[in-house]
């Protein structure tokens, strides 16, 4: 059956057809859809774990028990799961295990553009990298066999362009997902020094065997041009751009398994061409390997380690002329993403900005509190860093900072890695004020359930974390809840908790307006005769409010009647 699928759906189908039994993941663009598509199958177990480390360990447990398992994450998620990964390389697997990791060159929705291939090398596990949906399906499907044959977890590397591009896939049937027997094997699965010392040589031997096999790996392919002048080693979406521009005018070695790299294949290929190039996005991983073989090659001199490539990148590097184009001379204002009209985060950020509070931020929709006109954030590092960072900031600057600095963190991010930071605040004692922006969903990545929402990945009722009780249990005595639509309540809470000489948590609670369960109200209207053009309502940065003919106006198609702007108008111009 031929179907047009996005890369991530193709991965899901490949894993499923390859005999998958369990998937545990934490969402993260551009990897999220892999698990969402898997969750549509009722004959396997799928779940959203609280973070990537938990997800990978769950997948390990299933593999240990004899089941084929997977976990999917974005590139930075692999940092969180790096600890189990490095030792999983030593234990190996029972049931096959595939770790899907999606890189985001050009940072369409990420905080850095790290290259996951370094993890494959450092953890000494094989990595596969598809270039379109058909390959994503085939590679994912066969990754389980590779995993079981070589007794290792297998990394499947995606990138934004492959993950979110649709191309045609020919689908097969699901393989039987038999659970293998489980046998106790302390030497293999208990990684204490005595055992690990014996496993490390096994890992080295495995890598050598895989490196040898890589020379015959069907996913490393050679296409020779009629003349032997230009030779290009490439992989993933770079291969597509190369083919688009060079057609069959250059010889190409396409690497489908970027770790370990095929030495003999590369040597043979290099010997057959006059000039050798490596074209790869992000870091010079293949290039450095080729150089280490003593082979002369051109790579990052021409192809930047920054951002994404396109056919234009390749054409320009080979001196081909860019096609003509016409553009406007008028300035075209940017259209940055922003918090939705009626977003529950807005009232809290408005209050923080108004009181000139220093805000250590975190990652989620609320990171958009950083953009004008609110400009309410001071830092965003990685998930969870708001609370731990605030503690360090307050230790460094003392009481003066404690009275005017807060951390803001979403509910999903708090579950992911905020709790440990909060324990530290209580245990190592700063009078820190932490605001949990509880919108009852994982918003930024497209609305996934999490342990605070009361529902699981299938939308079925599930155990629900009691945030107030949890914060108290972690050692915070002062815990209060406010409604962020109530600006006065927000201001009072922030002032009182900042003044308190003990740590505190404010839970800013209201569900995301995009949730189906949320009933929005009719749009508000602004009476142009009463509006004095003071623009105070505009300082909220609500996309539904704009100025027309010198007066503020509310776009009725966008407004959800949250009433926050109404609390700001001193002239009573805004009404229901």
């Amino acid at each position, binding site marked *: 059956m031929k179907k047009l699928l996005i890369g991530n759906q193709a991965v899901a189908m490949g894993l499923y057809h390859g005999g998958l039994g369990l998937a545990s993941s934490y969402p993260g663009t551009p990897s999220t859809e892999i698990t969402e598509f898997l969750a549509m199958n009722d004959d396997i177990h799928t779940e959203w774990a609280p973070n990537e480390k938990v997800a990978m360990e769950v997948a390990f447990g299933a593999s240990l028990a004899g089941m084929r398992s997977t976990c999917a994450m974005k590139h930075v998620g692999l940092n969180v799961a790096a600890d189990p990964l490095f030792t999983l390389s030593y234990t190996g697997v029972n049931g096959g295990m595939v770790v899907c990791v999606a890189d985001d060159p050009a940072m369409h929705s990420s905080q850095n553009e790290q290259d996951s291939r370094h993890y494959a090398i450092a953890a000494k596990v094989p990595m596969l990298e598809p270039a379109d949906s058909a390959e994503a399906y085939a590679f994912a499907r066969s990754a389980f066999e590779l995993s079981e044959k070589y007794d290792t977890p297998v990394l499947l590397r995606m990138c934004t362009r492959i993950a979110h591009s649709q191309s045609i896939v020919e689908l097969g049937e699901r393989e039987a997902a038999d659970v293998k027997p489980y046998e106790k094997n302390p030497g293999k699965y208990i990684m204490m020094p005595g055992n690990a010392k014996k496993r490390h040589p096994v890992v080295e031997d495995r890598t050598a065997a895989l490196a040898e096999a890589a020379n015959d790996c069907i996913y490393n392919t050679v296409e020779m041009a009629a003349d032997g002048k230009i030779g290009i080693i490439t992989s993933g979406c770079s291969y597509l751009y190369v083919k688009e521009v060079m057609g069959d005018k250059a010889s190409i070695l396409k690497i489908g398994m970027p770790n370990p790299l095929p030495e003999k294949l590369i040597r043979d290929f290099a010997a057959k061409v006059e000039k050798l190039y490596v074209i790869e996005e992000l870091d010079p991983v293949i290039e450095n390997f080729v150089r280490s073989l003593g082979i002369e090659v051109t790579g990052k001199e021409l192809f930047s380690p920054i951002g994404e490539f396109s056919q234009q990148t390749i054409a320009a590097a080979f001196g081909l002329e860019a096609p003509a184009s*016409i553009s406007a001379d008028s300035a075209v204002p940017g259209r*940055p993403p922003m918090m939705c009209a009626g977003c529950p985060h807005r009232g809290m950020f408005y209050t923080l900005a108004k009181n000139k509070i220093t805000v250590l931020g975190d990652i989620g*929709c609320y990171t958009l509190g950083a953009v004008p006109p609110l400009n309410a954030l001071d830092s965003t590092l990685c998930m969870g860093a708001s609370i731990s960072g605030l503690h360090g900031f307050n230790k460094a600057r003392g009481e003066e900072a404690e009275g005017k600095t807060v951390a803001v963190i979403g509910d999903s991010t708090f579950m992911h890695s905020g709790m440990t930071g909060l324990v530290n605040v209580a245990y190592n004692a700063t009078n820190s004020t932490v605001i949990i922006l509880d919108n009852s969903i994982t918003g930024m990545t497209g609305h996934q359930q999490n342990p605070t929402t009361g529902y699981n990945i299938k939308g079925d009722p599930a155990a629900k974390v009691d945030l107030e009780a949890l914060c108290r249990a972690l050692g915070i005595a002062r815990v209060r809840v406010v409604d962020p639509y109530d600006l006065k309540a927000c201001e009072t809470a922030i002032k009182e908790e900042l003044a308190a000489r003990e740590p505190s948590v404010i839970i800013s609670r209201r569900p995301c307006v995009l949730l189906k369960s949320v009933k929005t109200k009719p749009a508000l209207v602004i009476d142009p005769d009463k509006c004095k053009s003071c623009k105070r309502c505009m300082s909220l940065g609500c996309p539904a409010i704009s100025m027309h003919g010198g007066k503020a106006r509310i776009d009725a198609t966008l407004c959800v009647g949250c009433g926050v702007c109404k609390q700001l108008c001193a002239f009573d111009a805004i009404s229901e």
Partner: protein
Amino acid sequence: MKTTSIMIVGVGGQGSLLASKLLGQLLVDEGYDVKVSEVHGMSQRGGSVVTYVRYGDKVYSPIVTEGEADYIISFEKLEAARYAAFLKTDGQMVVNTQEIDPMPVIIGAATYPTDVLDELKQKGLNIDDFDALTPAVEAGSSKAVNIVLMGRFAKYVDIPYERWIAAIEKAVKPKFVEMNKRAFELGYRS
């Protein structure tokens, strides 16, 4: 056959996903090799969104670069201007004249270039601009702007009307099929 490149551009939440789904389905049914590429993520929060659709005998790159697009279908005027440089100088744009202010305009840090399409026409770009909202409302919903635009666009490509209708029947939920067929026809006949 050489690869044909189409871009669908607009503002997050305007329904360009359905348009690309429809187009992808249609082109697969016509027997082409097809790639459709969109970036999910931050763009959902009211940001600028772009989808690339490419088809031909064999399509490699999933993306379209400057001066390469045979067609650009724009859901909004400012977005048409933003991506104008991607159009081939003899390419064709189909533009809904709706204006949606971006945040820099809302907060007064920038102005909306209202006459920008005239400027681009004067420079020689082929731009077919029209109000797609009115026919969408006439068909039954302001949300049908996407299908009205597809109807207008269909006039420029060599695929029979019935094939489009068949693709709509496949791509759209059953209860919205009739409304979308009306919207498509209004765009096609406009």
